[in-house]
């Protein structure tokens, strides 16, 4: 019996599986250890390939209003995003992991 599903090379399938497992690993981690609520109002995880085709996992974080209220708090927020980045590299090795501070979640 022939399948009507599109045929992909093993390489493409493996890459897709790996990418989804990395995203899931980050999502699981963020559910069990949520980011600091005094600094981060919401977050989302997305994957994409960079210009060289390397896999990137991005955690997009929307800061709380309070976190942006003065220079010192903003500095603390950016320092914290570096800590989150560090954790993300440990939780999902084999990816380029980034934490982006954004005003609102990407559509």
């Amino acid at each position, binding site marked *: 019996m022939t399948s009507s599903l599109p045929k992909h090379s093993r390489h493409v399938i493996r890459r897709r599986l790996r990418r989804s497992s990395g995203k899931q690993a980050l999502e699981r981690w963020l559910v069990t250890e949520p980011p600091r609520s005094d600094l981060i109002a919401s977050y989302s995880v997305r994957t994409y390939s*960079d*210009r*060289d085709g*390397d896999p*990137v996992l*991005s955690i997009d974080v929307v*800061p709380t209003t309070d976190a*942006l209220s003065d220079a010192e708090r*903003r*500095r603390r927020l*950016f*320092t914290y*995003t*570096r800590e989150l*980045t*560090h954790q993300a*590299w440990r939780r999902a*090795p*084999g*990816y*380029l*992991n*980034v*934490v*982006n*501070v*954004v*005003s609102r979640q*990407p559509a």
Partner: protein
Amino acid sequence: MTHQIGVAWLAAAVLLRQQADDPSLDDNLLQACLRRSISTAHYAVFHLITGDFTALVCVEAHESPVAHRLRRSLNHVDLKKVLASLLGSLEYDQKKGSGPGPISMPLQCMQALAETFIWLQKAREAADYAFDQPVDALQADQALANAEAVISEWQLLSPDLKQQFAQLLLLRVMPNPR
């Protein structure tokens, strides 16, 4: 010398960011200022690292043709691959035969610096090429904060560590032995 270059580029990035606060700017100019600010923040670190790399592996004067060629030999992909290897993304070593190979332990103290530089690379790519995605001021602020942090941390690295890192970069840019 290279530290001054990094600081000068960072100052340019700050000026571009400040310009974006001008309420008279239309959307196109605002986007241009923010994108250039992020890109310039990345280049502050890129020029600092490539400058130090050249100074560490080349005995010629900073502006000599050999030094210039060495500096130009290092590109964004090379830096990314070496830094990703430092961070334990072993795939980069295995996939590309020209990777620097296993990284020795002392370089692990460069981890935070490497992670943040890769962040700056990805932010620059988005700012310079992803024109379908608007950039907001917060991203530019994050880029400035991250570039400043990397420049400070780079200054604190011991000369031995910088030398070791320069050697890794050199292995990356050299063609594979046959």
